[in-house]
């Protein structure tokens, strides 16, 4: 189990004791809302990192999807067709990323840094840099919906988790995610169309971004061309804090969830404590450092025992 578990638990325990209002119903709901978009980015990101890849474009693509969705809504289209448009854009970027990584064997970091620019630029050009609003109340009320006592965004995020879990552990696609990261040649030699599955990993990421745009847009009842840029780094940090490695297809979905939870709880608790923003910045760095140092120490002990 990665080091994120004890540290996350410690953090939560500390917050419960020391932070006034942390356990209030309202705050728990906040935590859920704040974690949900990050979780949705981090789920496919886990698979992508397991496949020895990276997706720096996730935040920019999410922003663009949100813009597309908002433009569609503002243009009087229904929620379903707006979602379809957003998913199509996300999927398009995912496929493009995947194709360049899989078929042209370009490094994922470079490819997705390029598509980050393209997505960001496209969103800026479409919106002229302005936020898109006037979406009507449909998406906002969907966002505010409670289903079986769970807020809609949390439900969508949990569903994404469940879906990713089933995909990873109970389908060929998931098995091949391990294989593409661990030994792609083995998969090719096993007769599987590795290239297609490799594309599918990124396409899955784009698709989830397209759906996550629903939450992002709903949260603001508007869209902003650069709102989610930078979130991909939080997602990557969550994935790696959760114990997924950049090498050899070693990944843990639950670890990612814990990583997302820890980052969210930390920021939330610091806000509730009213800690200076500059110190918040330092403590985020400190948390990441702490987790990876502990992970490292534990691992070297295991290496010695083995």
């Amino acid at each position, binding site marked *: 189990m990665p080091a994120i578990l004890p540290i996350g638990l410690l953090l939560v325990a500390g917050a419960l004791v020391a932070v006034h209002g942390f356990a209030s119903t309202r705050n728990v709901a906040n935590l859920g809302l704040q974690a949900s978009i990050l979780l949705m980015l981090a789920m496919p990101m886990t698979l992508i990192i397991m496949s020895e890849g990276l997706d720096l474009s996730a935040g920019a693509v999410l922003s663009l999807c949100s813009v597309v969705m908002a433009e569609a809504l503002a243009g009087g289209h229904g929620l379903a067709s707006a979602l379809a448009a957003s998913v199509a854009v996300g999927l398009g970027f995912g496929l493009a990323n995947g194709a360049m990584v899989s078929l042209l064997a370009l490094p994922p970091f470079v490819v997705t840094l390029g598509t980050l620019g393209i997505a960001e630029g496209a969103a800026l050009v479409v919106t002229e840099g302005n936020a898109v609003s006037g979406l009507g109340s449909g998406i906002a009320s969907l966002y505010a919906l409670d289903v079986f006592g769970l807020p809609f965004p949390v439900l969508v995020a949990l569903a994404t988790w469940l879906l990713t879990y089933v995909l990873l552990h109970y389908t*060929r696609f998931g*098995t091949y995610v391990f294989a593409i990261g*661990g*030994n792609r040649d*083995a*998969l090719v030699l096993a*007769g*599987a169309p590795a290239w297609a599955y490799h594309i599918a990993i990124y396409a899955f990421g784009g698709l989830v971004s397209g759906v996550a745009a629903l939450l992002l847009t709903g949260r603001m009842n508007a869209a902003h061309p650069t709102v989610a840029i930078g979130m991909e780094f939080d997602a990557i940090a969550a994935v790696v804090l959760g114990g997924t490695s950049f090498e*050899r297809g070693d990944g843990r979905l639950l670890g990612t969830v814990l990583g997302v939870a820890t980052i969210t709880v930390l920021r939330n608790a610091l806000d509730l404590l009213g800690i200076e923003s500059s110190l918040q910045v330092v403590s985020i760095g400190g948390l990441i450092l702490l987790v990876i140092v502990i992970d490292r120490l534990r691992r070297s002990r295991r290496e010695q025992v083995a």
Partner: protein
Amino acid sequence: MNRDDTDGSGQPASAVPLLALRNVSKTFPGVRALDDVSLDLHAGEVHMLLGENGAGKSSLIKVLYGAYRADAGTILCDGRLVEITRPADARRLGIAVIFQEFSLVPFLDLAQNIFLGREPRRPLTRLIDHGRMHREARAVLDSLGLDYDTRALAVDLGVAQQQMVEIAKALSQRARILVMDEPTAALSERESKTLFTLIRQLRASGVAIACISHRMQEVFELGDRVTVLRDGRRVATLPAREATPDQLIGMMVGRAVGAVYKRRQYGKAGEIVLEVRGLTTATGVRDVDLNVREGEIVGLSGLVGAGRTEVARAVFGADAIVAGEVRIFGAIAKGGPERIAARGVALIPENRKLEGLALKRSVQDNLLVASLWKLFPRGWYRAGVARACARALIDRLRVTPPAPRRMVRVLSGGNQQKIVVGKWLAAGCKLFLFDEPTRGIDVGAKSEIFALIEDLVERGAAVLLISAELAEIVHVCDRAYVMRAGRIGGELARTELSEENILRLAMHGA
């Protein structure tokens, strides 16, 4: 698929070959890997493929498996023309291949690895049926006499275990045609024997088997027919019974070489260069004592997993020492590889791809990496000098092609191994730790490498030689230590060196 054990060596080959390659050619930029090669595989035969490193054996297999696309030539299956453009096509035709490079996925368990690409799925949901997969994997492993846990991750296996899983993976396909690229290179004698028994069973049940090996005795032990390749061409195909080792080697290298390298002369041992006392490591070495003298080749033998590699790594400073000491020229050796190497010690590691080579760098860069400071003591690297020096090493090692700027990744396995060995030659070392220096190397290259080792000791170097091939230890070493379960099981002087004695110590201790 495992019928009664019958010795199938006498079975006649059927008239129509199960698989036939006709006039296959394959060119890589600058290299003609296969040149008009034809090959027949009949049901119930073991067809051995022989050839020097880079002769094109692996390429031939890759063509018949659809991993490479041939430039010319046809493939017939059951006498019918077939197209094999992708591995999936080959699988459909009942071809299974065990490749030279491992093809296990580290973070999948054994069952998932064995069934990679063929995962059983539940009918309705199309989700993977883990229960069935593990049951069937269990059955395959049992048939090989392996008690590995099907839930263990591949990453936790040793090299030999990985090779056995590779074999299980191929067997589980119930293929009609089974091709093996140096399956025994990573196995100990005992595991090899298990494999041979199995191969005979498969042959008896009508499977067509092709097998690449650099070990001459395997050709005669297993083979019904032998095909020899040289420089991408087929030299000859003949019944194994009618062939002699010298004849085959002659065909392979185009010149006469002894089957097993024989030490030319034994010199006088000088002062102690390496002395290890009570060495214990976290990697499983227990209380090891040994020493190596100037002008000596000392063997370190034992079954796979006995901990020989770990001894070498600990001496070289690559693994931490828990207890005991290592002395080099009498002085205690401490620190990491850079400190030990600076004192004139070289380690030729066993896993060339992971530990030995920078695959994306050139031959020249790899050859000189350990001797930079020897060649350029001031620290100024001069490319012209480096090039000339690399050329000299390439000539000495007979690396083909002799191109210093070629990327190491595209060299054949054996040539890669030569570079791993070669990179220490210019460093001016006095103690060489050779860990499986001849793994995957053809006989010609093998004798070249042993000549090189002998040359080193004649010039006063000390050598510790680890090899899975007992014959090498017996014929090359001045004396040998035999390890068992992390400890030294015993020491054998030159007069006592024999395969039986080594095996006795390796399995039962002194």
